[in-house]
């Protein structure tokens, strides 16, 4: 069982105090905090093994290469990819999605083709497709949401056709917490010969991902949202597709042979990792994956669900709070809400004065907020180190905030 009190000890930042109050961190959907295992992995790399990879004929370069490639192997296992070469390291989810848009999309999406996304996408899984569609004369279609804030799969079925080239969908909404049925969505897309990209930025920290079971073609996520360092993203792409994909960035590290007027590219994944990679952070990302694997998703989900239920029931007791959440069985640990007569910025600021960190704004989902008729919202997002006391302190602070603004 997960004991948050024990886990908190691994996260030095959670000792931060303000006016005698320790930090309550509830903005995990934005980025998670880092355990000392990850922080130490970075320090250890720079103190003991720092060197460039794939090139030096000396000990530390070979060690650095082994650590970097070891992280790739751990990532492969983490999402059950069929091969290590299907894992490409990028800077973040956004870059991973752009990589697909600029390479696979550029080559395969043509005039009149259709790309399906949903109403709940983060801008990072919307703008690359908007841009590609405009450039190619292709069309974007949107899976709507139902009144209960879940995706309307019946409408999705109607959108699919022989024209559908790609379905790009988030595994979990960073605002509503809605978990999308990605296997079903992928299967339906495959019936029409479409490719599928899963934006797993909000999924990877909370749910076991098995890319072979999902049967998706691309899957993207960020290290920093799952206890790892910033500056590391992952793109999974099916090997048969990767082999035919043109490069993204050109330069060192991605070539097999170079002439003055031509070049032969390296095989994937190197072909897609031009230039010196973020070696130290990739190495430390492995420690984050190990940390999560040790906790097990089973336990993580049990903990999150219990805390989610507790938070929902406590927040529901406050009359002025309006929750913007889907049915509980389709929700990840994200709770978005509004308070009558108080702007979300003021809610966040009021909580900040109690050393509680939550997010306020549109959370990079302007179209969704417009659709919901909301100017902005406040969001609590949970992770493994959060506990009931965190929720209690938040609820107290919210009550105080309501009193002040009433």
């Amino acid at each position, binding site marked *: 069982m997960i004991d948050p009190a024990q886990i908190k000890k691994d996260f030095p930042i959670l000792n931060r105090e303000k006016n005698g109050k320790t930090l309550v961190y509830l903005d995990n959907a934005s980025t998670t905090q880092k355990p000392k295992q990850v922080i130490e992995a970075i320090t250890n790399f720079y103190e003991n093994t720092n060197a460039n990879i794939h090139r030096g004929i000396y000990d530390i370069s070979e060690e650095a290469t082994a650590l970097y490639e070891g992280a790739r192997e751990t990532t492969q296992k983490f999402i059950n990819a069929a091969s290590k070469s299907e894992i490409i390291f990028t800077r973040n989810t956004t870059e991973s999605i752009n990589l697909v848009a600029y390479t696979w999309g550029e080559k395969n999406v043509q005039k009149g083709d259709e790309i399906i996304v949903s109403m709940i996408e983060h801008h990072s899984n919307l703008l690359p497709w908007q841009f590609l569609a405009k450039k190619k004369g292709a069309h974007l279609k949107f899976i709507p949401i139902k009144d209960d804030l879940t995706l309307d799969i019946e409408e999705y079925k109607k959108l699919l056709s022989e024209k559908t080239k790609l379905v790009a969908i988030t595994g979990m909404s960073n605002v509503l917490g809605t978990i999308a049925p990605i296997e079903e969505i992928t299967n339906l897309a495959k019936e029409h010969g479409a490719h599928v990209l899963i934006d797993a930025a909000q999924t990877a920290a909370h749910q076991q991902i098995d890319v072979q079971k999902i049967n998706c073609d691309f899957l993207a996520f960020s290290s920093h949202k799952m206890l790892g360092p910033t500056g590391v993203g992952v793109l999974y792409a099916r090997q048969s597709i990767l082999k035919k994909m043109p490069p993204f960035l050109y330069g060192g590290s991605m070539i097999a042979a170079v002439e003055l007027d031509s070049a032969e590219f390296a095989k994937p994944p190197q072909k897609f990792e031009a230039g010196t990679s973020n070696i130290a952070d990739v190495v430390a990302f492995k420690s984050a994956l190990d940390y999560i694997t040790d906790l097990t998703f089973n336990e993580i989900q049990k903990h999150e669900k219990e805390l989610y239920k507790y938070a929902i029931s406590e927040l529901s007791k406050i009359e002025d709070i309006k929750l913007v959440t889907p049915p509980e069985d389709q929700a990840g640990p994200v709770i978005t809400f509004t308070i009558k007569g108080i702007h979300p910025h003021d809610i966040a600021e009021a909580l900040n004065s109690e050393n509680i960190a939550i997010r*306020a704004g549109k959370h990079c989902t302007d179209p969704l907020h417009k659709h919901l008729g909301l*100017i902005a919202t406040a969001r609590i997002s949970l992770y493994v180190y959060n506990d009931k006391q965190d929720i209690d302190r938040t609820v107290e602070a919210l009550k105080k905030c309501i009193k002040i*603004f009433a």
Partner: protein
Amino acid sequence: MDLYSEIILDHYKNPHNKGHIDSPTCKADEENPQCGDTLSIELKIENSVVTEVAFNGAGCAISQAATSMLTDYLKGKSIEEINKLKPDDIYKMLGIDISPGRIKCALLGLSTTQQAIKNHNNASKKD
């Protein structure tokens, strides 16, 4: 919660100069896209002096209070004086430390006002 001093809360809950004025000579609308605050300012300018002012919109306590205080100040001031207003003048009116995340909220009223004056000047040039 220092940020929400009595005076700021008072302006937020009971904003001054909120609504519309009859026959404004200029107006401007601005938006703070990050947090979704919207603001429109209407001014009546006679002989380069603001004689009437009103604002409308929705936003956080900081943006609403700052605009409420600013609009009180604007009445009777010349265009020249208003154009000279700097962020620090607004912070002084609010009387609190503004964190980097709230600067845009605090200054929305000022930038909208100065835009309205620009609109006024452009319109007068055309006449």
